């Protein structure tokens, strides 16, 4: 038996799982989106845009805003870890930033439900510091809560990737620029960030797609209208058994996500070849 054939045989079972349990249902959902009572048509999309246009915009805005904030926070953390002079401060930051990384989304949802609530710790701390009175407190469990939860959970992951890429850069150019009098901020944005742009983009795209498909955070934090598409899909299936509109919503989020995933595939294929 040739080594090629043997190799393919060894990979085949794992690939079959992906094909049967992911790609097949993915195709089913794409086909199902165009099926109305057994016939093909645009009915599901008409209904979807009638009912959920607001939620589609809401989802895109929330996920994009979170992605931008995650990017900025990761650059700040990675930049400080790379350029910080004070070793104690750098190790404090290194210790601090990673904690939320492996905390599951469903737990993040629960944490924020208590932390950002009207009587949550964030408001309580502000009241204790005299920044506001108990009557002025308000709940952040709306779109702000979702953005906070996403940024809280995804920043460590992107920052870890970005900091790793920054650490492996050639230090000579950085030192040279510093010696010529460039400020740290300038070095960060003109020398370091362009060199880690690929890693940053990959991390942000993976985060974007992850956030597009998280169901637990919108369910836990803000399930009222307007909400995210994931919550709508779950509602459509559980409340009405309406797979047509659910699949149409799924296809729309798929198109949104794959427009960014496409960028990812191009980057990583280019790196591989």
């Amino acid at each position, binding site marked *: 038996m040739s080594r*090629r054939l*043997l*190799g393919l045989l*060894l*990979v085949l079972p*794992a*690939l079959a799982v*992906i094909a049967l*349990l*992911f790609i*097949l*249902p*993915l195709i*089913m*959902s794409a086909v199902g989106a165009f099926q109305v009572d057994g016939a093909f048509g645009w009915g599901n999309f008409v209904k979807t845009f009638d009912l959920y246009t607001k939620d589609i915009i809401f989802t895109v805005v929330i996920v994009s805003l979170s992605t931008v904030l995650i990017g900025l926070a990761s650059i700040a953390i990675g930049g400080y870890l790379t350029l910080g002079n*004070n070793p104690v*401060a750098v190790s*404090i930051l290194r210790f*601090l930033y990673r*904690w939320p990384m*492996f*905390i*599951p*989304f*469903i*737990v993040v*949802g*629960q*944490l*924020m*439900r*208590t*932390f950002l609530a009207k*009587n949550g*710790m*964030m408001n309580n701390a502000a*009241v204790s510091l005299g920044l506001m009175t*108990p009557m002025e407190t308000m709940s952040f469990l709306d779109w702000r809560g979702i953005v906070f939860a996403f940024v809280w959970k995804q920043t460590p992951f992107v920052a870890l990737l970005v900091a790793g890429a920054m650490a492996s850069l050639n230090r000579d150019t950085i030192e040279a620029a510093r010696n010529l009098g460039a400020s740290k901020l300038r070095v960060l944005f003109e020398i370091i960030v362009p060199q880690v742009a690929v890693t940053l983009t990959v991390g942000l795209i993976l985060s974007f*797609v992850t956030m*597009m*498909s998280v*169901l*637990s955070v919108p*369910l*836990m934090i803000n399930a009222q209208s307007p909400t995210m598409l994931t919550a709508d899909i*779950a509602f459509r*299936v559980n409340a009405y058994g309406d*797979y047509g509109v*659910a*699949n149409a*919503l*799924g296809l729309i*989020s*798929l198109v949104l*996500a*794959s427009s960014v995933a496409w960028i*990812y*595939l191009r980057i*990583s294929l280019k790196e591989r*070849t």
Partner: protein
Amino acid sequence: MTALRNNLSALWWVPRGIVFGLMAFFIFGPLFNMLLWTVTEKWYFPHTFPLEYGFSSWEKVFAPRGGALESLGNSLVVALLTVVVSLALAIPAGYALARLKLPLRGVILLAFLIPQAFPNLTVYVNIARIFYEIGLNGTIPGVVLVHVSHGLVYAVWIATAAFSAIDPELEQAARNIGAGALRTFRDVTLPLAAPGLMASAIFVFLESLDEFTGSYFVGAPDVNMLPLLLYTTASGGNYQIASITALLLLVPSLVFMAVVERFLKADVLSRVGQ
């Protein structure tokens, strides 16, 4: 002059202290708030801290009819089975991707990323429909299969990296003194790759333990698991029990974060995805 400079650098700790203090508050605040809820008996607006502390919710959670033990048991069984199935698929695949010449190797590696790179919600909705037809919906094997498809990317990518980090000459040496291909794999390659495989097992275990969406559509309401218990108690407004469940899910994640570097050495890590 040096004294002045020392004073100035000491002054830098004021902005640093404020920034790190805020970071610590926003990172640990939610965790601390949850810990408080796990031991709260009575707490309402506008009190900053609970009015009464106690462990009565813990008793409720772990009471025989509390549902938590069943969910914990199901979650552990599913996670362990997911690890076994994933590794059984990923060890041969990883070995082949690392050692054997494969056509379209890059494309095959990327194929395992697909479940992570596309929004998976509608996929689970449709898997639930297929599983319903063939009687797998609401069963433990059904949930395991869904978790395997999702965790396979970690299993395969890390296993591939672990195998390619091994020096091929070690295997060659074993072959030269007469060991067969299978014996070489069992006695040389597998033990050397063990730490990396262990890391991939932990990743898959956690991924399964924390998975919500697939369990929600394929498992619920017949197979109860911890994330589902957390969701139902939280939406029922029971913050104490929801927080205790959250803590149960949180501990393995934090322990893992602390030990991951022991299993995932730099030589393996730098090869992940390549």
